[in-house]
């Protein structure tokens, strides 16, 4: 059985790859390369998997909520990703890289009996990225 819980955070970022020239960056990232950055309201779905325990729960809601808020939301919410989040000092804060960073944050903090199996992140309601365990 799987349980999915949704979280939201808002952050600014700028897409600019150090390996590319300013012209190449503008061509590749378009408006996302604007030097002063811009922001999104990100929607994060965290999916865990396991059999319900003796209480009939796959995961205790408060435990999951606290874990995700402390491991992810507090680090990213209302930050400028490139400037305030160490992982993005070198990596471009695309939503793909954001999904990977969030997965690593969650894995490092994971204490729940249920397994972390999926991280889904939407930058806008038109673009969604998914990391799945084993894929």
């Amino acid at each position, binding site marked *: 059985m799987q349980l999915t*819980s949704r979280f939201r955070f808002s952050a600014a970022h700028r897409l600019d790859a150090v390996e590319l020239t300013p012209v190449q960056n503008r061509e590749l990232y378009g408006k996302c390369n604007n030097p002063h950055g811009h922001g999104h309201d990100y929607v994060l779905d965290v999916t865990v998997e396991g059999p*319900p325990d003796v209480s009939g*729960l796959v995961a205790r809601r408060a435990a999951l909520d606290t874990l995700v808020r402390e491991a992810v939301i507090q680090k990213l919410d209302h930050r400028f990703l490139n400037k305030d989040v160490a992982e993005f000092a070198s990596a471009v804060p695309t939503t793909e890289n954001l999904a990977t960073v969030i997965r690593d944050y969650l894995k490092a903090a994971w204490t729940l009996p249920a397994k972390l199996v999926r991280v889904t992140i939407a930058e806008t309601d038109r673009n969604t990225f998914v990391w799945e365990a084993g894929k």
Partner: protein
Amino acid sequence: MLLTRKAEFSASHVCARPDWTREQNEAVYGNNANPNGHGHNYLFEVTLEGETDPVTGMVFDLRELKDIINNEVVEPMDHRHLNLEVPPFDHVVPTTENIAIEIWRRLDPKLRRPHARLKNVRVFEASDLFVDYGGPDATH
């Protein structure tokens, strides 16, 4: 081909194990353990998997699916107190997980066809939280 139909019922419930103290139940279930119960609008999604019939162009007759969902789940559970009126929740804690299992148990035998079967039951506990159950034989 996957086919998903949404449905909804409104019901009250209490999440608490009778063999635990009130403090233990509140630690695990939070305010869902309030002894007098509370209510939810339970939105759920029933997903079938099957092959499109070459004659009808359908995986499953939607009107029949609607009737089965209504008869097996919505009518017995809508505007009921799950613990008091809807077995097995007299002795199974009506968590969202257990409600998903019970919806599967009620629908699965009624939805078996040569070229279609129940694939997933998703039950929303809130707009931001849901469970997916793929049956006792599913890998998850």
